[in-house]
């Protein structure tokens, strides 16, 4: 592949990368919000709701992401859900990751040492304060490594969106490859690009982890 080809397609590729980052960040934001909401709902002591959430989470975790995307994008219109490819991609990423994030948050809450809540009760904190000032912050910090890991996994899943024609980086790269007969070079460049991206994100994530978990008790950080 000549650099001239890359230069000619640079605007499309950069635009594609923009779409990738947008899908990734919006999907992750939806997934984090819904995942946390599911975990909090799960903590309400209401059995039917817990079963329902469990069933949803297991269904999403037990089926391939590609299948979920097809069901949402191609099957959606049959149940009155018409979405553009990009919207379906973002909602799909959000729904998919929410199941994993909710499991991560569940483990995070479970890792908060019992003694901390007991101590808060004994100094007379009201339950709402205990939740906001003790349980929630400790649980969230304990989940940082797992969340970073999931964000990295999610960044790789965005590639799958190209199959339902979301115009992200992989899609633009394949368009370029088809128009200029540079399939091998294009996919080689993609592999190197994603490898560097994932390595960079992982490094930043590890930095963040050490910063955020610096003041955790050894007991809680073993989540």
């Amino acid at each position, binding site marked *: 592949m000549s650099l001239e080809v890359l230069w000619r397609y640079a605007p499309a590729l950069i635009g594609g990368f923009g779409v990738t980052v947008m899908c990734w960040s919006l999907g992750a934001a939806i997934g984090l919000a819904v995942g946390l909401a599911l975990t909090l709902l799960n903590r309400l002591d209401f059995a039917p709701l817990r079963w329902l959430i469990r069933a949803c989470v297991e269904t999403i975790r*037990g089926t391939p992401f590609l*299948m979920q995307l097809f069901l949402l994008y191609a099957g959606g219109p049959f149940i009155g859900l018409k979405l553009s490819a990009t919207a379906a991609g973002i909602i799909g990423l959000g729904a998919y990751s929410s199941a994993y994030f909710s499991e991560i948050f569940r483990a995070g809450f479970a890792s908060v040492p019992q003694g901390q809540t007991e101590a808060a009760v004994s100094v007379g904190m009201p339950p709402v304060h205990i939740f906001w000032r003790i349980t929630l912050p400790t649980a969230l910090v304990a989940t940082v490594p797992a969340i970073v890991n999931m964000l990295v996994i999610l960044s790789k899943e965005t590639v799958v969106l190209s199959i339902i024609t979301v115009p992200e980086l992989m899609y633009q790269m394949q368009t370029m490859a088809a128009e200029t007969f540079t399939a091998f070079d294009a996919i080689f460049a993609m592999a190197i690009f994603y490898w560097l991206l994932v390595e960079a994100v992982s490094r930043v994530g590890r930095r963040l982890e050490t910063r955020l978990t610096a003041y955790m008790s050894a007991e809680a950080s073993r989540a």
Partner: protein
Amino acid sequence: MRPEIVLHSLGYLLQAAGVTIALSLAGIALGFAIGALVCAGRVSRNRALARGAAFYVSFFRGVPLLVQLLFIYYFLAEYGLDVPALVAAIGGLGLSSGAYQAEILRGALNAVPAGQAEAAVALGFSGLEIWRRILLPQALRISAPPLINEFILLLKASSLVSVVGIAELTRVSMNIASMTYRPFEAYLSGGLIYLVINLCLAGFGLYAERRLASGRA
């Protein structure tokens, strides 16, 4: 909803599910062989070997599987190698899974208490015997539950092979969707089959975990 469409093509779907399972089994087996080699490289005292193995893990865990699969296809086409699509797909799944399995095995080896190898040395076991009789049996036992988990992940990842035209569960669901114009029913039933397979695997994983935990020091 028109369930008769699904019932009509249930035979195709089940056959495709068989292909998916076979594909994943072959992928996990190849991945285990690669993973064992890469793990051996990572724990070896040879600097270059350890570096190479670490690079392998980093690369195959960092590049999205879809990119890896297409890379293998275009690579074979570029150099005019005539390899059946199925073989290339299994190769792709195995190469990727090998990186994950190498890390699982390495974690399991690290989980065997160091005192055991030391005790074996003190008792006069040879190096090979320590591996064969002390380290490997325990490491394999520890790694069984995460390996079953990896199998579930690989089975889901095998849906990406549909993109290169192998008639596994996802591809056949796509075909049924486009033949009947009922994508909702087609993908729903395909997804349900994946779910049933994975729930069985997860159940088996729990059973194995309980069995293996019972005899542990």
